[in-house]
């Protein structure tokens, strides 16, 4: 069993889950959190995680964590993946652990690795300017045997190292490249559009094997999802399990959790989108905990431990053949208007049998959204649903995603 987990990044729910497990841990984060940590008896090492220098580096952090006897590092956010990778490569005496962390942080490198290993990926390329994107689209058009007058092939560009949808742009024509791309987008990854039904999974890995696989059904990417997956994806569970294990093998992932996004085609082929190895957004682990009746946050941390026994592992995960009784879903509410002053909760929600609770808050008067939103921006609250029918769940999430809550 791990002597002490070093949690890289600040997350109250994770800290509380760890407190409940009674396992030793220490939190590494910015000095801003130190007073709160001290006040609440949370073991804490203050560190300048956004700086890499003579005084701020993994060896230095490793020394500081010695006092806590830390022997496993766990990344909680996209930006702390390299820090955890560097520490773990020291703890495990394996420099490749750090390189693997880089894999998660460079989407071009990630795709290349996937391609070599035999996963289905689209055409991709690192691009350095708009001309690069245009050349990429042109080659893609050629490959797709475009005739004169036909529409251009869709191209996505995304930064090498950002979480989720941040900085992601879809370009549907040559003109859109000029319209939508900014100089500050480059360099980045350009890739062809992957077709298929998009979903994500969360695979908890220990000793290179999937110990627990959660599949999340996306109703609308970035807005709503539910767990467990609906009937169709459930029927493909074995296929998905196999493909995820294949990805884990190719990447050589031994411990932790991966959160890959896939596109399932009509021919039961899985296109690999990308993967992360930190806690997914959209309150996914919260839903996962509720449906599968276990503490997914604690499990996320604990499966990073190379020294854990099989019995201990079995204890933290649901039974192998456990099938949830209810679907848990949520929809994140974003104002549709640029300016709004009231929160209006529709009456229908009170009487909706699937409705559980929400975290919506009223805006301050005349609140405006800033024009420069990253990704989907911050949502104003989440509505949680629970029920037995995945189709009804899909319907509800779609409905409330479109409902105007902020007027």
């Amino acid at each position, binding site marked *: 069993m791990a002597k002490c987990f070093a949690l890289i990044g600040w997350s*109250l729910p994770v800290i509380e889950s760890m*407190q409940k497990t009674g396992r030793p841990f220490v939190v590494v984060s910015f000095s801003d959190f130190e007073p709160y940590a001290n006040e609440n008896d949370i073991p804490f090492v203050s560190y300048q995680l956004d700086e890499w220098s003579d005084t701020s580096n993994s060896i230095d952090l490793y020394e500081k964590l010695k006092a806590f006897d830390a022997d496993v590092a766990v990344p909680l956010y996209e930006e702390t993946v390299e820090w955890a990778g560097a520490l773990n490569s020291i703890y495990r005496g394996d420099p490749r652990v750090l390189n693997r962390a880089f894999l998660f942080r460079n989407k071009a490198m990630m795709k290349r690795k996937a391609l070599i290993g035999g996963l289905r990926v689209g055409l991709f390329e690192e691009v350095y300017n708009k001309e690069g994107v245009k050349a990429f689209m042109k080659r893609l058009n050629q490959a797709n045997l475009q005739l004169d007058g036909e529409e251009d092939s869709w191209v996505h560009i995304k930064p090498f190292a950002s979480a989720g949808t941040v900085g992601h742009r879809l370009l549907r024509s040559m003109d859109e490249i000029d319209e939508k791309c900014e100089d500050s987008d480059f360099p980045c990854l350009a890739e062809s559009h992957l077709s298929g039904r998009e979903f994500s999974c969360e695979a908890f890995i220990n000793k290179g094997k999937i110990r627990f696989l959660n599949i999340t059904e996306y109703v609308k990417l970035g807005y709503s999802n539910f767990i467990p997956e609906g009937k169709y994806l459930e029927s493909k569970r074995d296929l998905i399990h196999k493909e995820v294990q294949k990805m884990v093998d190719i990447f050589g992932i031994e411990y932790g959790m991966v959160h890959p996004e896939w596109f399932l085609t009509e021919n039961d082929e899985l296109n690999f989108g990308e993967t992360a190895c930190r806690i997914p957004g959209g309150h996914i682990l919260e839903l996962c905990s509720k449906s599968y009746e276990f503490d997914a946050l604690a499990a996320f941390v604990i499966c990073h431990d190379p020294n854990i026994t099989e019995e201990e592992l079995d204890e933290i995960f649901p039974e192998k053949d456990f099938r949830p009784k209810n679907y848990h879903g949520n929809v994140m509410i974003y104002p549709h208007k640029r300016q709004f002053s009231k929160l209006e*909760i529709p009456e229908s929600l009170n009487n909706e*049998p699937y409705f559980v*609770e929400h975290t919506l*808050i*009223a805006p301050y008067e005349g609140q405006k959204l800033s024009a420069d939103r990253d990704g989907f921006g911050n949502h104003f609250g989440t509505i949680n649903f629970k029920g037995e029918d995945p189709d009804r769940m899909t319907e509800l999430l779609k409905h409330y995603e479109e409902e105007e809550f902020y007027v």
Partner: protein
Amino acid sequence: MGLTIDKVFNNFDQSFQEFIDSGPLTKKGKATKLASHIDILSLTRSGLAFLYSKSVELDRGGFFKDTSWSDPDKLVPYLVKGTLNYGHPSSSFETLSELRMLRIAKGEDSYEGISAKDAQKFLEEVIVHNLEFALREPSEETRLRMPDRELKKAYNLFGFIMSEIDLNGVYEKLVEEVRLICEQRPIRTQKARELISLVKRRFDTSGEAKKDKMIRVFINALYTPSRGVRENENKESYLEFLGSADETTLASEAHEMGELMNATGLVSGYHALLLRHILKVNPNLVPICLDLNDRGIAEWEKYHELVSSLILETASWDNCQCIYGLARMLGKNLFSRRAVRVGLENLRRIKINSQVEKRILKSLTEPDADITALQYLIGGTIKVLGQPLGIGQGHNPTCQSARGISMWSQHSPAKLIDMIITVSTQNNLIMRFENQNLVSNNLVKGLLDQLDYNLDVVSVVLVPHLDKIYNEMMRISAGRLEDPHKWVNPAMYGHWIQVDFASCYDYMSNSIMDFPGYQRIFFASFHPDFNGNRHLVYPNPVGIFITSNKGDMIGFHAVSLLRVEKSPSGEMRAYFLNPNNEGRQDWGQGILPSVHGKGEKQGESSLPFHQFAARVYAFHYSSLDVKNRLNEVPVEEIEKVEKLARGSWGKSYTWNQQTKLW
């Protein structure tokens, strides 16, 4: 429904368990989720009762920990409205905080630093500061700001508190409230009646203090308006009493009721019984029974046939309030106008359209079974004609329509009756705007989504159509780079409206332009010291900025400037009609419209002239009449107004110093 309710309770219990189980780190997040259940529960009476039963556990479980509500002894009654206004989750926390206070007040729980008496006093003050919720009569500001759901929560909360606590401390304030509401002589008297009934039910009013004596007048006016009623207190026994009463007794009954009606503006059901009886056995007593002035008596003598028919057709137990309207109509010699008489005769004979009939019946709370919609409509027409300043817009955003009805009632009563007849029979209305006929039934949308039926009968009939036509006129005139009201007001209200129009807001530059120039026109048009001592003849439809009690811009509103005159104390004041049912509001910067005691006629609001000027953004005037007077307006007056304007709504706009050609 039962099933859903159970589910709401179960969901709460589950969320509450999660809240209790969570550690201190995530408690705040769980409290937010828990608040969403409180939000739903506080929408119903049973939900509130359930929350009340849970409030100890919630509190002990740390629901208020690290929030503004953590210490009950540090709470401020005055701030409750703000948090309720703010919406969820604040309003949900606030609701629970009041329930906790209620528990303390009832001695079911104790806290250090706050006694049961303190808690009681706190709740009393909360009620007094929030009468709009307690009485379900939201102010203009609240109506604009609060979503319906939040209003419903607030109503429910106050209903609950008021049924649970001793309300004596609120008494005095309520008496004053009753007095000032009645002083404004509203046509729709339901709010006053509810308040009076509340005071009667919940307070001991038998004392000899001034407030006791005053409220007894109002209570008597509604419940025991005469000696005969006091001795024969219900409908049947009073009718019996009337049957055997001699002339002297009837005269004294008539006298008592007539005076009470005139003193309060309220009519009791007994008054209708008496009036009908007198009409049959001793019509000479009618002028006493209506407490008529000399003109009224002359009018009655001349037109008693028509008036008698109207009384017999309309005055009933539930429809009694129209008796006051009738008295006022007689006092103003309206029956001497042939057009009015003919109009009323016509109205008596119409067949009401079934849709209109539905609307009328929907607006009545306890209609008399034997009184038809037409009889209510005639009664409503009499009320509007008798009390043109008593019209209100209810909870509807239709100040323009209310303003119109009031204006026609004063200056073109026959036209108004005609319009009532057309709409009542056709459920349609045609008005002309710039060479096209606007047919309300062909128009889709007004400002109004759903009519609030808390309206007088005439408004219920007319407003849906007036609103659509007004809105269509506004739509047609939009995009002309000037305020559409410039064209809409004269077309909508009629030829009484001056055709020139000034607005301080400049569409082209999106700014407040040449404010001093604009104000000079206002002063030169209306202020008797600068307009050659002329008085306003017709109401002037004026657009005003509505500001909060802190002076912040909230929105726009339509009022009518009625007259500008010196008050009894010699102050130059603007007297105006505010159709939003409540002339008393706090507009910030010490600008507090008064409704009584500063020379107001019943139903008027008033402000010192410069304060009123500081809120006006648009008005009609005659350029020919003001052109030689503009330079006579002193700079100091204008500066005073500009300072008030810039310090309030003006903060929401860009100001442009450029001079404008008016």
